[in-house]
């Protein structure tokens, strides 16, 4: 059975691979919550649904992966708040298929049924368990000891839960009765071996047990619907076989009313030629006689993919049935496939089989439903929106059908002439479903009466580009105006075929549309040699090329607006030569299947494989090529050959076997627990060699070529890790464990409401931004609430909704396991205009194509470029913006603008031409000198900039305006040649402004002998003052020694001045050493008490130091 399930799910996956991205019609969906599998390579879905208090719980199958050994097929239980859909419980149960869930209200417990891994999966064993809804913990459980599984179950009382049971090994079925401690009380299994399966089970008020499923029909491979009844005394069960049309039928769901009326639903084959499938609903009496003379049949769309076969053969009953006890109306959910797209359906019929309501939801499969007291319907199943997800929907009760109406009006005009576009088509969409359409009148105006809700409006007219509106809100008895201004179409079409001289279509030929040798557009031909291009109106040269053929060009091909130009080509073959040879291993054994590839300028032109003798043969146009031979497990080899027209070149390859080893180990978390499904990618010389996943025990193993590997490990909810230097030896095992750290996560929640009105903004988009990049986003639910899970960090939040002003909240700190509540109030959009011109500061000429960017808090909200007049314009929400103008070759400028409602703010920019200075700092050995500080001094205004050289020793100062500059490098312990570059009125870019660095020969700390003793030498560019006073003061009784660095034979002057600038002493000295000093007697010079400045001057240097003197 499980093998069959595997095949079916594989089949489903195959079908789903054709499904385009989802745009769900949410219609009267109130909320929807999804669970995204951590990994799921095959189909999965929700199975059962139940209500408990103010919460709805679902069961499901998740994280499927049939490629591992043993396979992964896990169950999940999830709970949601009924009013908000917010997740309150999410618990994975490993290696368990959960096929149904029910609630025991008084005990506040859930029960689940299905199958659990037994021995070597996928051999299943029937599984039943009692679950704590608060945390999803299994309280009690039961596992059957044969290959078996449970279908749906039903609690008759809180201590009597009947479970439909299928004993796979005997092809028998029946039911098990459990108490609320998961102890088996009774079992009733048929011994007929008629290959029967039970999917759903219900119990009547007088405790008759009814189950539905299918039973194999005699003498053929078809199944019939089987409804079976057991009396309370457990006498021989009474079956009812429904064979609708002598073909394949399946019973899916059963419901028993309080009056013990029995409704069943299933799928039946309506005809085999052509193949048609239908939904069957019928009503039975207690004794299994028909209550309705004819069943209700709803023909389903026949799908060529055979998806309906899947409906009839799935492990899960892909339909469900229930009744509103007050109105006695029946609700059924069922599924079908139209044009390879799955649709879930909801139908409501009365007891006379009249259809009261139908709803269709694309890209969904509904599996199970439940009704609450407010006639809301809760459904679980699978959603295919972005990936394959388990989904839970809350649907608005059909009793409150959308009756309130409002009005949509507006006009459609041409953007260029502002003339009305008569007959323009107006289409109104709810989600992706067209709900209304009309045409514009002679005045270009339209008017529609439409149900209240949120819509998208599309306007289209021949010769114009269609336009979509933002979200439009239709409110009861109010008129919403949406005007369109359509842009004229200025494009046409080029089409044609490319054939060989033998009139054979040439596929994959490259078609280039060129103007002035510049490629404007390109495409390739289809299998039939046809091609199609959409081009702006104008004249083009069309170039057609294909390897093996001579390139052809058609000049001056004219494209007219909306016109179709046909241009066909017949290509001549290029002259060819031949290449042949053998691919052998080192033992001269042929390598069958070895691949020979022909490259020209690194582009793969052709390939072939070696035959059983290792021989290959290929014909290619004359020329010089790179030939590469490769075979799995062998080192590839390449060689260059010259192919001559009509000649045969022989080229043999001998390939060497790649030595291999094994890497194995465990992926664990920091607590030492195994991490399942961690992805390990093995790189050798930065080339991905293989990827594998860890299993349940965190274990992995790969066999890879020998070498030193870099391994990247990724696991959901953990921080990725990279480890290098993992060495694999030939025929050896390398053991390597990886420890991953869990990513700390927090939560952001809140509500989005309007002001005025304080109404929830359904569908408002909440984006979490990190450095202007969207980390995650969600939309507000029907009550305006939202919930997000993010990694701990500091974020900015952006909230937007059509028609409302976007609001931001910045610097939001999200800590691990903490919830941040952020409520937002949106106001209707009020706009103003920012416009202006961007001019060249030097010439006052307008600057075209300058980029003008609108920012809030450094987040770019809009961007445009200037036209030929240098003009730009933004229509934007009111508020304060930073407007930035930039253009290559000019210095970027920022200004702040305040935008007021319905007013225009003019902001002009004068951009000055900007230049850059760049160069390299290298050592005398021509090695780049990294991390050198390079200083730029603007000699015009005294400002300085500094940067550091990168690993290549390169520095760069950009966006410099015309001025005088000086550039020089600095690095401790280095001196530079030249010392600096000076630029007068910089008016061009300066490159190669290079410096050569020489290591400064720092002398060892030197001692200088003074008359009072030895002291250390002064530092570079420093005056060192030593006083003869042993207490460190300078008094009139003392001498001071003024030490400085000197160059021998150079003359130095010592000056002493007051802080008023009056010179009080001056003397000179010619240096005889690298360090020199002046001796100065304060007494002799009769200075008064006070502060003085010492100055030591030479021809090119000047040093100063303050001293104070007390008398």
């Amino acid at each position, binding site marked *: 059975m499980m093998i069959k399930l595997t095949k079916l799910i594989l089949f489903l996956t195959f079908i789903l691979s054709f499904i385009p991205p989802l745009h769900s019609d949410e219609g009267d969906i109130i909320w929807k919550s999804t669970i995204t599998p951590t990994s799921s390579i095959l189909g999965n879905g929700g199975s059962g649904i139940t209500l408990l208090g103010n919460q709805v719980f679902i069961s499901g199958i998740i994280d499927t992966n049939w490629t591992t050994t043993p396979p992964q097929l896990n169950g999940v239980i999830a709970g949601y708040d009924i009013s908000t859909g917010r997740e309150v419980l999410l618990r994975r149960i490993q290696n368990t298929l959960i096929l149904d869930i029910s609630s025991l209200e008084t005990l506040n417990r859930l029960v689940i049924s299905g199958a659990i891994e037994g021995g070597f999966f996928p051999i299943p064993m029937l599984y039943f368990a009692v679950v704590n809804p608060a945390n999803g913990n299994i309280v009690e459980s039961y596992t059957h000891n044969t290959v078996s599984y449970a279908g749906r179950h039903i609690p008759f009382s809180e201590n009597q839960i009947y479970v439909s049971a299928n004993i796979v090994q005997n092809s028998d079925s029946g039911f098990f009765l459990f108490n609320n401690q998961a102890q088996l009380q009774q079992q009733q299994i048929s011994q007929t071996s008629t290959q029967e399966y039970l999917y759903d089970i219900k119990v009547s008020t007088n405790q008759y047990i009814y189950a539905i499923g299918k039973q194999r029909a005699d003498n053929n491979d078809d199944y019939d619907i089987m409804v079976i009844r057991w009396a309370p005394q457990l006498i021989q069960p009474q079956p009812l076989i429904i064979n609708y049309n002598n073909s394949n039928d399946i019973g899916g769901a059963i419901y028993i009313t309080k009056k013990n009326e029995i409704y069943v639903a299933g799928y039946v084959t309506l005809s085999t030629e052509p193949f048609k499938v239908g939904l069957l609903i019928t009503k039975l009496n207690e004794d299994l006689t028909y209550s309705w003379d004819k069943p209700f049949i709803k023909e389903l769309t026949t799908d060529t993919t055979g998806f309906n076969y899947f409906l009839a053969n799935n492990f899960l009953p892909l339909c469900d049935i229930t009744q509103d006890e007050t109105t006695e109306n029946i609700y059924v959910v069922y599924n079908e496939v139209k044009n390879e797209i799955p649709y879930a359906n909801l139908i409501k019929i009365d007891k006379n089989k009249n259809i009261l309501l139908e709803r269709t939801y694309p890209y969904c499969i509904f599996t199970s439903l439940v009704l609450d007291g407010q006639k809301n319907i809760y459904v679980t199943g699978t959603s295919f929106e972005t990936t394959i997800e388990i989904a839970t929907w809350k649907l608005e009760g059909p009793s409150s059908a959308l009756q309130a109406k409002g009005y949509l009006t507006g006009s459609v005009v041409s953007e260029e002439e502002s003339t009305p576009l008569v007959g323009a088509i107006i289409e109104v969409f709810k989600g992706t479903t067209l709900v209304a359409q009309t045409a514009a009148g002679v005045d270009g105006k339209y008017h529609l009466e439409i149900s209240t809700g949120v819509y998208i409006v599309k306007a289209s007219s021949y010769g114009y580009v269609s336009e979509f509106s933002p979200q439009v809100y239709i409110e009861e008895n109010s008129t919403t105006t949406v005007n369109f201004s359509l842009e004229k179409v200025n494009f046409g079409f080029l089409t044609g075929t490319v054939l060989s001289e033998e009139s054979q279509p040439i596929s994959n030929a490259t078609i280039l549309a060129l103007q002035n040798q510049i490629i404007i557009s390109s495409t390739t031909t289809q299998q039939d040699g046809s091609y199609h291009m959409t081009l702006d109106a104008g004249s083009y040269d069309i170039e057609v090329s294909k390897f093996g053929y001579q390139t052809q060009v058609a000049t001056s091909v004219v494209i007219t607006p909306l016109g179709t130009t046909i241009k066909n080509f017949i290509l001549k073959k290029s002259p060819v030569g031949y290449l042949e040879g053998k691919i052998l291993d080192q033992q001269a054994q042929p390598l069958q299947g070895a691949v020979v590839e022909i490259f020209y300028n690194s582009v793969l032109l052709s390939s072939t494989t070696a035959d059983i003798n290792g021989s290959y043969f290929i014909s290619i146009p004359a020329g010089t090529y790179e030939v590469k031979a490769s075979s799995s497990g062998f080192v590839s080899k390449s060689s260059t050959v010259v192919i001559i027209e009509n000649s045969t070149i022989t080229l043999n390859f001998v390939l060497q076997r790649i030595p291999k080893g094994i890497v194995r180990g465990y992926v664990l978390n920091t607590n030492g627990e195994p991490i399942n499904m961690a992805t390990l990618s093995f790189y050798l010389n930065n080339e991905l060699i293989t990827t594998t996943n860890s299993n349940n025990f965190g274990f992995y193993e790969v066999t890879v070529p020998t070498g030193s590997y870099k391994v990247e490990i990724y696991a959901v909810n953990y921080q990725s890790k990279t480890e290098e230097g993992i060495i694999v030896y030939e025929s050896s095992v390398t053991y390597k464990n990886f420890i991953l750290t869990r990513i700390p996560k927090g939560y952001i929640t809140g509500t989005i409401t309007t002001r005025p009105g304080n109404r929830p903004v359904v569908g408002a988009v909440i984006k979490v931004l990190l450095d202007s990049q969207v980390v995650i986003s969600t939309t507000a639910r029907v009550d305006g609430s939202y919930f997000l899970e993010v990694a701990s960090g500091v974020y900015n939040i952006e909230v937007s909704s059509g028609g409302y002003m976007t609001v931001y909240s910045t610097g939001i700190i999200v800590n691990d396991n903490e919830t941040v509540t952020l409520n937002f109030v949106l106001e209707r959009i009020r706009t103003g205009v920012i416009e202006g011109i961007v001019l060249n500061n030097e010439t006052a000429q307008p600057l075209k194509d300058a980029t003008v960017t609108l920012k809030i808090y450094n987040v770019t909200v809009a961007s445009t470029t200037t036209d030929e007049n240098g003009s730009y314009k933004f229509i934007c929400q009111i508020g304060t913006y930073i407007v930035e103008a930039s253009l290559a070759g000019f210095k970027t400028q920022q200004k702040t603008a305040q935008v007021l409602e319905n007013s225009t703010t003019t902001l002009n920019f004068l951009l000055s031409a900007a230049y850059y200075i760049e160069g390299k700092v290298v050592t005398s050995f021509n090695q780049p000198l990294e991390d050198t500080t390079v200083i730029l001094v603007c000699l015009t205004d005294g400002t300085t900039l500094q940067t550091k050289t990168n690993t290549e020793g390169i520095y760069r100062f950009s966006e410099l305006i015309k001025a005088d500059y000086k550039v020089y490098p600095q690095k401790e312990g280095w001196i530079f040649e030249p010392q600096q570059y000076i630029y007068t009125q910089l008016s061009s870019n300066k490159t190669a402004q290079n410096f050569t660095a020489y290591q400064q020969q720092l002398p060892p700390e030197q001692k200088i002998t003074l008359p009072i003793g030895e*002291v250390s030498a002064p530092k570079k560019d420093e005056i060192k003052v030593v006083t003869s006073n042993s207490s*460190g003061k300078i008094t009139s009784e003392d001498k001071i020694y003024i030490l400085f660095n000197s160059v021998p034979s150079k003359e130095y002057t010592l000056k002493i001045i007051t802080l008023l600038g*009056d010179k009080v002493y001056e003397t000179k000295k010619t240096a005889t050493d690298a360090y020199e000093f002046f001796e100065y007697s304060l007494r002799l010079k009769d200075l*008064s008490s*006070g*502060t003085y400045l010492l100055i030591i001057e030479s021809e090119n240097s000047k040093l100063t130091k303050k001293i104070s003197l007390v008398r």
Partner: protein
Amino acid sequence: MNKKINIVLASFVISIELFSATLPGWWFFQKNYTTTSEVFISENFLRIDTLQTISNHPACFSFYQGKAGMFMFTEVSTLNLIYSGIFYATKLKSIGISGGLIYNDTGKETIHYLQSGVEKSETINLQRDIFMISSLSKLIKDNISFSLTFKIANSMLQNENALAFAFDFNLFFYSIIKNSNLAVSFKNIGMSTSFKEESDSLPLSLSVTYSCKILRFFELGLNLPYVFNYRFSPSLGVAFTKDPVKVYLSYTFNKEDNNFGFGVSSNIQNFEIGYSIVPSKYLGVSHKVGLGYKF
């Protein structure tokens, strides 16, 4: 009256100069207390820089039309020198009274020394001064006023303290010739205590300042200060005034550094603001900002 004053002044000069063998100390007594140069005392300046001019020449307070005013200034230099103060001036009947508090700090430096043959170093506070100033001024003729200023200061050098007090006399001749004013000052008549062993003489000085208006917006100023036993360093300045803004440039002769001065000031309603910059070869560029308010 004038005769008596002259005798008193002369006796002070003799008594101090006779005992003065070293260069005079307490040099910060020579600094002016405003953002403007003291060479300018013309009517233009009295109109725009009233409070600043009073700080430099207290005698001219008698020609001040307002009742009271307050002025504060701060000077910083790239050599880590700080000099700032605050003044208040008011009139009591015919007598003008002004007072202020000034702070001067020359920063820190590291000095090395040998103790038992081992080199050591110490970073010390070079100099910190605080001094109070108070003046009385009175009109002695329609166009002549007189002021007497008393100053007392405490100076701390390398953690050694000394005290000094001094008197200044100032005569101000308003419109001595048409559009020109003259001031004569005799400053720093006083004495000090010693820091350690020997006290320093104060920078006793006599200065004559003359300023006149030329053309409509221009003014020339000349200051001839002589510091006894020390130096004679005249200053010359030219200023341009266009209400309510004034710009000036001055040059001082016979100095090694700080020769040039450039400033701008303005009078907006009751506020008086000023800025000056003194470029320097050695002492670091100094910036001075001032703010006054007339009550």
